[in-house]
């Protein structure tokens, strides 16, 4: 699909659609904002990587998937989970390491998962989402399920052998794999443009003989329309598709990282292209009232706040939990 088609698609997006996308972004924003604070306040243990600034990718792709579709994601996966409808309370409880967390406190931020919703999990090994996601696509194809498997990964993961091998497998096996690169320019402290001579990730698809497209990752409608088209293509059996969503992470790699490696003007410019503001502006232009959008944001905050209140009250896992689920019967 060409950029033109996408642009055309974008124009035809209705306000109702964008409204839902905006709501998803608002939820991710509220969630991540509070998670960042809670982590700083040591209420959440472990490692946390927030996706603030990248909400449009999660919302745009997540909303393009159907029930039964799969998502394999990364260490920066809260947004993808929320966009696939995972329960906010169960997620927050998990980050708090509670027994009622979605993974009973055994997974945490880097491993949060909900297979019932198709979310095979965040993953703390850079690049691992790709073979796993491709494997889920293999299941879908061989079992004739017509499911799409979306594998999220960062541009830093592209330098992993796992990327190379998995993309090729998806290509030669013609799998319904939606390969979604969130190019937020940095991998930890490293400017990824220094880590390869050809920074465009979509360009690399050609070497595997698959199609790809770069999209403005801060424009939720553009992401969503591209993802819808790409997912439809996958479902029709046309093989894998690679999306490169250009975006930016606002916070450090981890909370507390002062990001000395980022030029201020760059950070500022990207902040100005806040995906929620981009969407809000467009929605206002279509006649949606600001109050309606504020209300959505308030609802998101309330929902997140309630999940925090609840998580705080919950007990840690029972000790037996530590010994459970190592093996199945």
């Amino acid at each position, binding site marked *: 699909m060409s950029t033109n088609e996408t642009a055309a698609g974008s124009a035809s997006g209705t306000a109702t659609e964008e409204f839902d996308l905006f709501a998803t972004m608002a939820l991710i924003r509220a969630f991540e904002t509070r998670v960042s604070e809670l982590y700083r306040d040591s209420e959440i243990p472990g490692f946390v990587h927030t996706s603030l600034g990248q909400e449009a990718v999660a919302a745009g792709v997540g909303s393009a998937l159907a029930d039964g579709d799969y998502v394999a994601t990364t260490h920066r996966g809260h947004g993808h989970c929320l966009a696939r409808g995972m329960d906010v309370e169960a997620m927050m409880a998990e980050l708090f390491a509670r027994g009622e967390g979605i993974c009973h406190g055994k997974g945490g931020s880097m491993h949060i998962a909900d297979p019932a919703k198709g979310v095979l999990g965040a993953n703390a090994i850079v690049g691992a989402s790709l*073979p796993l996601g491709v494997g889920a696509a293999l*299941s879908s194809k061989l079992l004739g399920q017509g499911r799409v498997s979306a594998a999220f990964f960062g541009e830093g993961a592209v330098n992993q052998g*796992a990327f190379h091998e998995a993309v090729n497998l998806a290509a030669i096996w013609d799998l319904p794999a939606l390969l979604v690169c969130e190019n937020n320019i940095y991998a930890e402290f490293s400017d990824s443009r220094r880590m390869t001579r050809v920074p465009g990730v979509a360009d690399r698809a050609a070497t595997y003989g698959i199609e790809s497209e770069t999209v403005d990752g801060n424009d939720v409608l553009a992401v969503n329309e591209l993802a819808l088209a790409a997912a439809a293509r996958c479902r029709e059996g046309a093989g894998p598709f690679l999306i490169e969503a250009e975006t930016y992470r606002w916070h450090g790699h981890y909370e507390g990282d002062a990001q000395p490696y980022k030029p201020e003007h760059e950070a500022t410019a990207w902040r100005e292209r806040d995906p929620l503001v981009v969407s809000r502006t467009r929605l206002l232009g279509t006649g949606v009232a600001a109050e309606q959008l504020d209300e959505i944001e308030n609802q998101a905050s309330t929902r997140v706040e309630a999940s925090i209140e609840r998580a705080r009250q919950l007990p840690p896992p029972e000790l037996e939990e530590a010994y459970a689920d190592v*093996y199945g019967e």
Partner: protein
Amino acid sequence: MSTASEVKPEARYIDALGEGMALALEEDERVIVLGIDVGAGGGIFRVTKGLHERFGDERVIDAPISEMGYVGAAVGAAMTGLRPIVEIMFMDFVGVCMDPILNQAAKLRYMTAGALEIPVVFRMQTGAGRSAGAQHSQSLEAWFAHVPGLKVVLPATVADARDLMLDAVHDPNPVVFVENRRLYAMRGDAEAERLPLGKARVARPGDDVTVVTWGQMLRECLSAAEESEASLEVIDLRSLAPLDLDTVVESVRRSGRLLIVHEAVQDFGAGAEIAARVGDLLFDELRTPVRRLGAPAVPMPFSPDLERALLPTSKAISSAAEGLKAEG
């Protein structure tokens, strides 16, 4: 291809492996076989011969030389409804694809509190004795046994080659399935009593020394038992995880002596765990120290003469056992 009951009593180990896979493919549509040249080529050692012809492209799949990718994909497929039997051509190649085994398959059930089930079989061919050199001769089963969440099975008999394969496919957990190449050509009874995965087998009863082993070394131990002046009780462990310590302990209680034999490097090998556990549990009952016999701490040399000199032989086993008997 025949069904289980038709396997000739004197079938070959390699055919029993193929038979096990064929039965698994036959009984469950979700089973697939995946690996380098496992398809029409029938596998570099011919273990998967005939499977592609019989079950087709979608069930018996050739992979490119991308172990990290296809082993990882097998794990992803196992999470989502398939039951892959994935081949790592030589166990040594886990060096390029350990992550999906170590960090994904072994841990994802636990990390998701049981929400993900990962029924995958990692077949890997192993072992020295063929002058294949240091990068194609390693026995690394101790690594896998050290990783919670994995099962590790090592069939040493023709019947087990088939039966443990079926058990591994039926198991809801990731199973590392270790095939010693030198067993491939072995013929034996395909209709031996069937024990569940996780249960050791007393391969030969005896009184003086309990000899615990697995894989290819079972043959050497049985020969040693024939040759030895001491009466050896030979136990084929069949799996390291689960570890059937009860059978070992029961035997050592009677014999008072334990010799552990494996092909892997002795230092920090799986035998150490058994020695440590039995040494603790039967401290007061052991007549002699627990002894181990494994390869010395060197990479496996190419030269067949050197290689032969490094691997435990029936002679070394019987003399170690006799030594133990003489000790106390």
